[in-house]
């Protein structure tokens, strides 16, 4: 029996202004399979899935569900066609309960009272059937991300989804949680549901999918049976050339401690303790990596060290001097540079011209200003030098920063922070959303900094990146540093630590 494919995409094309996110995409997903989609950041995976889900509209192209073309005007239509989606950024209302979130859009009547009881019953059924336990009356904001994701899956199941799209579901999960998720997905598949799974972790693709498609720069470049391909082939398809999966670096030569963190406790904006009594050192000439699942306090830790967030208690010492003021400008004076996790909201002002961003945070420095005035000529000359040195394209300091691509934007930040020759560099997610060429370049610069005797603290949710760059690895879980390892520690070991299971 040849079943009709669950999903068929024909000639899907989508532009966001000047960005061509999807170029003439064709894709066939067979019913009852797990179909993986991989691709670098910005390849257009989420866009494509959002088009299937009716969140975006394709500029042209056709979507067929179970063989017949459907016009998916909005998510309502997608839901009606049996499509469910778990978004990369969760679509939950934080101050609603789990139940309210699940009912939203499927309330079962004008009044809530009637729907509530049946929703509870249905939830119970789903829970027992798939092992998706979650208390329906807790508020979303009180749930850990793993459970929030479960709510998203429940939402889709509650609406009777036959086709389930998961957009990078494991980015926020520990390896163990990811395994649990995969078990659920397999149960779903065995019951005849179709699953599209987006990820850029090749290991996961190999472990769970039946088929895999590769996207690159908006194009669908290949589709393979998982059993018939290899990690190396997929990597090459993804990037478009052969890649070295390891960074070249020599032995570290650590000196005296530059940064010392003592019993640091930090709370987030809601007053929740995110960093709990953490202590560690970073010495000159070494890279200390902080591994952990997103949301375990790494961001708050970085912000506290960078002076953006005031710690509740504890002490931070830079070169033996206590940093007791949360004042990033002053810390820069002391030689602390910071490449933030989020370049769009922190590292750059996207509306500014490139040269303005090339001095952001350093604009008060003597070379850049005269009295109260900025020395625009000096700033632009300086920006041009960095552009050349870092091969930032296009080489135009007067261009609006928003018009640079993600990798080049990241280079603007990296150039600015590294070129002031700091003694301490803290880095969050150095290569998020950056193409592979830029990744190699940025990694090289980081290693060079280390070899020049700088102290470097690196936070990344990409375990591979942490292992490739770090000389020592600290693992964070639930605000604590649960252990320290060397980079040759196995992925398994680190994964368990990230889940808070082993130390």
């Amino acid at each position: 029996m040849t079943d009709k494919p669950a999903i068929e995409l024909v000639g899907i094309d989508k532009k966001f202004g000047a960005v061509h996110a999807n170029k003439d995409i064709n894709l066939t997903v067979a019913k009852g399979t797990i179909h993986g989609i991989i691709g670098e950041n910005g390849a257009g995976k989420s866009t494509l899935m959002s088009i299937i889900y009716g969140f975006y509209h394709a500029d042209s192209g056709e979507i067929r569900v179970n063989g017949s073309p459907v016009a998916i005007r909005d998510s309502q239509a997608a839901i009606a066609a049996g499509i469910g989606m778990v978004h990369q950024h969760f679509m939950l209302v934080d101050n609603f309960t789990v139940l309210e979130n699940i009912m939203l859009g499927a309330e079962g009547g004008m009044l809530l009272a009637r729907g509530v009881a049946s929703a509870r019953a249905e939830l119970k059924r789903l829970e027992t059937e798939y092992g998706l336990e979650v208390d329906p009356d807790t508020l979303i904001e009180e749930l850990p991300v793993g459970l929030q994701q479960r709510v998203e899956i429940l939402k889709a199941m509650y609406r009777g989804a036959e086709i389930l799209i998961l957009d990078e579901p494991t980015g926020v999960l520990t390896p163990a949680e990811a395994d649990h998720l995969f078990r659920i997905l397999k149960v779903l598949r065995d019951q005849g549901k179709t699953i599209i799974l987006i990820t850029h972790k090749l290991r996961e693709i190999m472990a769970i999918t039946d088929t895999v498609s590769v996207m690159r720069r908006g194009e669908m470049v290949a589709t393979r049976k998982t059993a018939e391909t290899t990690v190396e082939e997929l990597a090459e398809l993804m990037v478009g050339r052969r890649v070295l999966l390891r960074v070249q670096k020599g032995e570290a030569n650590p000196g005296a401690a530059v940064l010392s963190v003592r019993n640091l406790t930090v709370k987030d904006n809601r007053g929740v303790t995110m960093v709990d009594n953490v202590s560690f050192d970073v010495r000159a000439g070494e890279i200390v990596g902080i591994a952990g699942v997103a949301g375990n306090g790494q961001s708050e830790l970085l912000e506290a060290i960078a002076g953006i967030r005031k710690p509740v208690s504890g002490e931070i010492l830079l070169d033996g001097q206590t940093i007791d003021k949360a004042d990033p400008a002053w810390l820069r004076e002391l030689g602390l540079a910071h490449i933030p996790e989020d370049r769009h909201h922190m590292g750059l002002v996207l509306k500014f011209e490139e040269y303005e961003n090339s001095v952001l945070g350093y604009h008060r420095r003597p070379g850049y200003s005269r009295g109260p005035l900025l020395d625009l000529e000096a700033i632009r000359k300086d920006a041009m030098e960095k552009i050349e040195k870092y091969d930032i394209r296009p080489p135009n300091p007067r261009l609006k920063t928003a018009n640079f691509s993600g990798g080049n934007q990241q280079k603007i930040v990296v150039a600015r922070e590294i070129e002031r020759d700091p003694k301490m560099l803290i880095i969050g997610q150095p290569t998020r959303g950056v193409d592979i060429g830029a990744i190699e370049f940025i990694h090289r610069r980081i290693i060079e900094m280390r070899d020049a005797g700088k102290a470097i603290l690196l936070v990344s949710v990409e375990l591979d990146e942490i292992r490739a760059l770090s000389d020592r690895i600290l693992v964070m879980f639930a605000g604590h540093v649960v252990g320290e390892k060397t980079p040759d520690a196995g992925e398994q070991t680190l994964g368990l630590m990230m889940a808070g299971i082993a130390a």
Partner: protein
Amino acid sequence: MDYYEIFISILASTIRLSIPLIFTALAGLFSERAGIFDIGLEGKMLGSAFAAACIAYLTDSAWLGLGAGIVCSVALSLVHGFASITNRGNQIVSGVAINFFIAGITIVLGQAWFGQGGRTPQLSPEARFAPIILPGADAAHDIPIIGPIYANVISGNNILTYLAFLAVPFSWWVLYRTRFGLRMRAVGENPGAVDTAGISVAWLRYRAVMCAGILCGFSGTYLAIAQSAAFIKDMSAGKGYIALAALVFAKWKPVPVMFACLLFGFLDALANFMQGKQVPLIGEVPVQVFQALPYILTCVLLAGFIGVAIPPKAGGVPYTKER
């Protein structure tokens, strides 16, 4: 006049002065809970007061006046919606624009049509909402303590007053017990969640601002044809802003909104009452102090003595999927 009578008098005055605030603040509640800031409450109130007065004057019917007030206010809401929902414009700017437009157009049209310096002609009794004397009010007068309250505070108000107090639990019920309310609260917190649940964000928000329009229509109508007997230029006199402050003060919840509005109404009543009177120890306090009091109090309250008031998270931010 004994203290109890003074108290009754101020209480009755408080109620009368709170009604437009309650309607307006509830209007703001619907709009802002759905994520649309509404500085234009002031203008909507003024516009509907004008429309209500004109139509009530022409038709000699208070109810038609109310209808006109609502239509006008809803129309303005739609303009605000068109700017801030469809065109993703700045919500504050749009609100400010509406306030200017209405402040001008009411006087321009009023003067052109009636020639009374922007006022509309005095209304006949049929064109107004008259006080309703509840059964037994006259008899109750002499019962100690509760008698005067029944006769002077509870009885003797017009229908809109009672509607305002009904609107409070009704709003609560809509917000927390209906599908529309659930979706509306959701869209003010995370429009993405609503969108991916297959609900149109724009239409939902349009419905919310229309609710705001309807409620504002009531408040304007109250001003023009229940509390007074004509439209007078600028008769909203900043009440829209006070209502907005009450909304913040009440942390965007219906029942607290009512109490906040009663508080501001009380301050106003007190200001009227205290005028020219001697305050023990201080002597005669200049009226300006009382006139400024609600505004000062608002600032004091906003300064955080009410705890942090967290507005709906998506408030003021136009919903854009595509950059």
